[in-house]
């Protein structure tokens, strides 16, 4: 199917209408401020009003409704108390989902940061720094769905007798091993999904950390070198402590992103074979199984889990900023 510009024209019009409406609201506010003699406080309120309105309609109200739904039965009309939360911590499959989410949140940020840090440390003084960093950054340009499809092929399984189409099994067979069903064998399949996530995120960590490493004052490392410190000691004792704030930002950003991991799971296994995570299970329960209450409960738990990370990041940013 080709992209038909004429057929898409109404959508373009909707876009223009949206932009125009946005501009109209902004100009009405500006005009109001400009004409009416308002005090500072009132002016602040007028300027904040559209944002507050959008946050209320788009975030606060749906959030409260989700909270309410999480205490109701599947159809959303009968009160179910804490049933949905009890289900989450007693159902064996839901527990697998919680376990996987924990594994993701512990492993993805730490592996991503570790890979990014070592890579940044290795290339930061090299002549090919820009090239090397963009190489690692490239997977970030691919959407999670694209990355999921790519890695699904990497892990593809074919029986021993025929040619392997998956890179990993091809290597295994080349070294005389038996092909394995990487995405099927629980619980290790969770690790293979995590590798795909790390692959997409390591570049982001490396670029931020490389920037931070370059910002470490030259006098510091020079002084250490004069004192006879080895490159390894300089890296671990001088560089890493100096870039701690950046490290923290990277780890937190990764953790927040990982909680919401959905696309990779959906494209690679569809949450089968015991690989589900909260964000994916929430979708399945609410939209595929019609268990709105359970889906909402999972959403609430996800929100509660992410909140401390977001709060910490906001505070950290306020400190550094």
């Amino acid at each position, binding site marked *: 199917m080709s992209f038909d510009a004429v057929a898409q*024209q109404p959508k373009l019009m909707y876009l223009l209408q949206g932009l125009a409406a946005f501009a109209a609201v902004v100009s009405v506010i500006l005009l109001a401020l400009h004409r009416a003699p308002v005090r500072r406080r009132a002016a602040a309120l007028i300027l904040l009003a559209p944002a507050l309105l959008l946050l209320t309609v788009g975030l606060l109200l749906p959030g409260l409704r989700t909270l309410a739904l999480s205490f109701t039965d599947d159809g959303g009309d009968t009160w179910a108390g804490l049933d949905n939360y009890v289900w989450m911590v007693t159902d064996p499959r839901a527990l697998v989902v919680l376990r996987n989410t924990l594994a993701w949140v512990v492993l993805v940020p730490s592996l991503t940061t570790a890979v990014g840090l070592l890579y940044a440390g290795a290339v930061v003084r090299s002549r090919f720094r820009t090239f090397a960093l963009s190489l690692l950054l490239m997977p970030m340009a691919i959407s999670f769905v694209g990355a999921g499809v790519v890695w699904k092929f990497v892990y593809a399984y074919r029986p021993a007798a025929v040619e392997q189409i998956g890179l990993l099994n091809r290597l295994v067979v080349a070294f005389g091993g038996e092909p394995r069903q990487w995405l099927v064998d*629980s619980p290790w399949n969770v690790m293979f999904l995590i590798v795909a996530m790390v692959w997409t995120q390591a570049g982001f960590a490396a670029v931020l950390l490389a920037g931070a490493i370059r910002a470490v004052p030259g006098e510091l490392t020079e002084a250490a070198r004069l004192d006879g410190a080895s490159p390894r000691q300089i890296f671990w004792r001088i560089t890493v402590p100096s870039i701690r704030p950046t490290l923290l930002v990277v780890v937190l950003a990764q953790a927040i992103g990982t909680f919401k991991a959905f696309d990779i799971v959906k494209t690679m296994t569809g949450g089968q074979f015991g690989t589900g995570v909260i964000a994916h299970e929430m979708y399945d329960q609410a939209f595929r199984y019609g268990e709105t209450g359970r889906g909402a409960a999972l959403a609430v738990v996800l929100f509660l889990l992410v909140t401390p990370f977001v709060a910490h990041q906001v505070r950290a940013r306020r400190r550094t900023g």
Partner: protein
Amino acid sequence: MRFGARLALAVITLVVTVTACGTPRSSDSRAHTTADCGPYARYGEHPGTEVTVYAENRDREADLFEETWAAFADCTGIDVQYEGDGEFEARIQLRVDGGNAPDVAFFPQPGLLERFAKAGRLKPASAGVVALAKQGWSADWNGYATVDGTLYGTPLVANVKSLVWYSPRFFRDRGLSVPRTWSELMAVTEKVAASGVKPWCAGIESAEATGWPVTDWIEEVLLRQQGTDVYDQWVAHEIPFNDPRVIRAMDTVGSVLKNDRYANGGFGPARSMASISFQEAGTPVLSGDCAMHRQASFYADLWPKGTEIGPDGDVHTFLLPGADRTSRPVLGGGVFTAAFADRPEVRAFQEYLATADFANARMKKGPFVSANRGVDPANAATPVDRLSIQLLQDPRTQFRFDGSDLMPASVGAGTFWRGAVDWIGGASTRQVADSVERSWPEN
């Protein structure tokens, strides 16, 4: 004028211009056919109206639908806007909750239709549709679109699942004849296995739906071993999911699918089927690496290009046999129309879809099976479609709908599928059946 006022004026001018020329045009560039409008006279004239249709079918299947109702649309003046979406099952709920429900939806699962009917979102079928439904389909079939005694739509598509694909040449070369009873089927299975070829091939990978082909197998065998009554009770959860009779059916399936001597032909050990997509699972039949592949009529479209289907072709099908020669248990699935609106043009369109005329016209355009009594098997596009229609019209046939589509979605599209995957992966029958039983919603 100061800057702020000038800016505001400019913006307002822009808004007015854009809104004025932004009214979406109806892009009805379809060439008017000179088709005879006589047959469509009874649907009346509805010039300038629009009916939106939302369904799962995309690409070629969608084109064939649109071609089929083009003449209806031209003659009645109704602009039928079709939208196909591979994520239909998940998104229909969002569309309806968001106040953006289509006029007509094609539901691939009766359970999903029931959910919207119970929520009061669907409009009951018009008197015209009810009459057409009674005339066209058996009570069983209409029952799948009936909720609490009210009919909401009609069956649109039917597919027959109880088919075994095989290579006639493979059978001829080994002197095998097509089995007519379950024990003959097992004899053929053993004979092929003894000759060093794994008799069965299967693949159950299907993204988040992984596992469904195994659930079909279990339903087939339960239907054959215990008959329609026990099957219906099991689907309706009047007997527990882990009833001993169900366990027995699962163990029978296990003796084939979980048996490394019998499966998975062309792909390795039995548990390799978890990695093999259902689309490619049957291909070893062509190379002689497996003898049989149980899959629905729609598998006809999934063979590699150039594969000839028929008694003298590369592959053909036989009915998965019942316990004896006289029984004709057939498991199948279907798609049902239902409407979220009751405007006259929507009624007219739904009535048109309920006629045998529509089904016959659609069959002439390409592979399609309808359970409507009025369809002519001669119109079938392929030998498999013809066989399917004959089976559906045969009065001896005991048709039963795919049970996992009738169970609550959290079981039928959730724990049952997942349980089937665990089971193929090595979990015991008891363990899996118990866990599915525990997951059944309480009310």
